[in-house]
């Protein structure tokens, strides 16, 4: 780790200024991803600006029925919060599927969104990686590729975003509140994480100095049932090979509305707009669920090690939809 300065600003504006004015500065919250990457030499900030005390750490219920979640709230407190458990159980389920009890006690809402999209090569400084060192090449294309993305990847980067929380937030139409040098702005979570394209070093649309202050959820979808299912190599404490967050509203044996997002398949949490479109108005049948999920993965590109992800994602999606609608296999 290279030497760095540490500061604890008195307010969010001061924090934004401190990072904006210093190209080597980054925000520190729970530190579970950043400190690890600093130890590995993947991240080398020269200043850490600690924002845990300057962003909110609670939940505010909004007039329209939505909630505003302070960016500093820990993953465990968010998952256990009565309002979230009762009104957004999908979010609690996703949070509880991620990391370990200790990490959830440290990691924050804002930090979870800003954890790096990554693969084993990104974290190994002895190997080429376009995300870590632009232009150096992608080791994952020909290397260990089991975790590689199947949707929206580029020849520059095939890493996947590991968050569970973000997958649920995406299905819930969350919006990210950002404070930057130019003031406040709101970014729909659907536009927040980037696909790698020719700039795999950029995981999100945030500019240097922009700070996540809160995440806002609209009022829960009425009459909807929801579930988060994560498929991984072991029963707990592992990243998803594939995960599915789904909300479905059914009336008269037909899908009125479906919101579906996938984790583990792309550089960003993946909203399945095409599958949602295919499902709308369809009868609730196993066939309809499979057709919808297959449509989402029609343009999937797979390599030597990760072809299994496409049938796994389709099967998992169909299974979640079956369980939510009571359809038998």
């Amino acid at each position, binding site marked *: 780790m290279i030497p760095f300065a540490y500061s604890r600003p008195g307010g969010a504006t001061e924090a934004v200024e401190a990072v904006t004015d210093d190209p080597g500065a980054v925000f520190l919250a729970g530190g579970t991803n950043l*400190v690890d990457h600093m130890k590995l030499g993947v991240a080398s900030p020269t200043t*850490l600006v600690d924002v845990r005390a300057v962003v909110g750490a609670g939940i505010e219920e909004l007039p329209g029925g939505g909630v505003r979640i302070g960016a500093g709230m820990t993953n*465990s407190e968010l*998952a*256990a919060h009565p309002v979230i*458990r009762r009104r957004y159980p999908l979010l609690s389920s996703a949070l509880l599927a991620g990391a*370990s009890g*200790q990490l959830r*006690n440290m990691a924050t809402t804002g930090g979870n969104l800003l954890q790096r999209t990554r693969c084993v090569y990104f974290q190994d400084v002895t190997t080429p990686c376009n995300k870590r060192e632009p232009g150096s090449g992608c080791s994952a294309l020909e290397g260990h590729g089991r975790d590689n993305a199947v949707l929206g990847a580029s020849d520059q980067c095939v890493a996947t975003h590991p968050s569970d929380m973000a997958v649920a937030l995406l299905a819930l139409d969350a919006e990210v509140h950002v404070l930057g040098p130019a003031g406040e702005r709101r970014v729909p979570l659907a536009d927040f994480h980037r696909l790698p394209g020719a700039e795999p070093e950029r995981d999100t649309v945030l500019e240097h100095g922009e700070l996540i202050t809160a995440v806002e959820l609209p009022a829960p979808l009425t009459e909807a049932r929801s579930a988060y299912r994560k498929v991984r190599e072991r*029963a707990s404490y592992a990243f998803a090979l594939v995960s599915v967050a789904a909300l479905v509203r059914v009336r008269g044996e037909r899908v009125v509305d479906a919101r579906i997002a996938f984790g583990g398949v792309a550089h960003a949490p993946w909203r399945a707009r095409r599958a949602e479109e295919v499902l709308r108005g369809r009868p609730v049948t196993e066939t309809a669920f499979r057709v919808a999920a297959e449509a989402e993965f029609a343009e999937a590109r797979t390599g030597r090690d990760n072809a299994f992800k496409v049938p796994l994602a389709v099967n998992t999606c169909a299974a979640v939809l079956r369980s939510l609608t009571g359809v038998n296999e």
Partner: protein
Amino acid sequence: MDTTITLTVDGERHELTVDTRTTLLDALRDGLGVYSPKKGCDHGQCGACTVLLAGRRVLACLALAVAHDGAEVTTASGLGKGDDLHPVARAFLDHDGFQCGYCTPGQICSAVGMLAEADQEWPSHVTEDLDAPVEIDDAEIRERMSGNICRCGAYPGIVDAIREVSR
């Protein structure tokens, strides 16, 4: 860059000077000679460094000491008083919840933290109904302790120990 911070560790207040790069784990072990939190992977993957920070279990290897100025830290050795062991530590002895013992202080802190979380009705990944009262069965213990790895494979004894204390 050196900074002077204050840590209260197992009830004792200390002032110490640390480099900003020093983790809470290194501050405890190398700075204060508190050796019960162990350095396993040093990357947040094994749980051997688990301590209680203001009562919540965290990984000391991923916490920067400078970011925890003024914190109250409890390590496994501070849970009991000499031979007067904490019930969780006693149960680990009674149920053979360890072999080599390296992961044990982290396991014990994690178990104490997770039992407090369960007391506060925090759900887990295997909790069927997020609205119902939390009941700690073996599946809940395994899931909630999944951040603590035991290379000796003492898991059956660890589950037995925690089950006993949870009742």
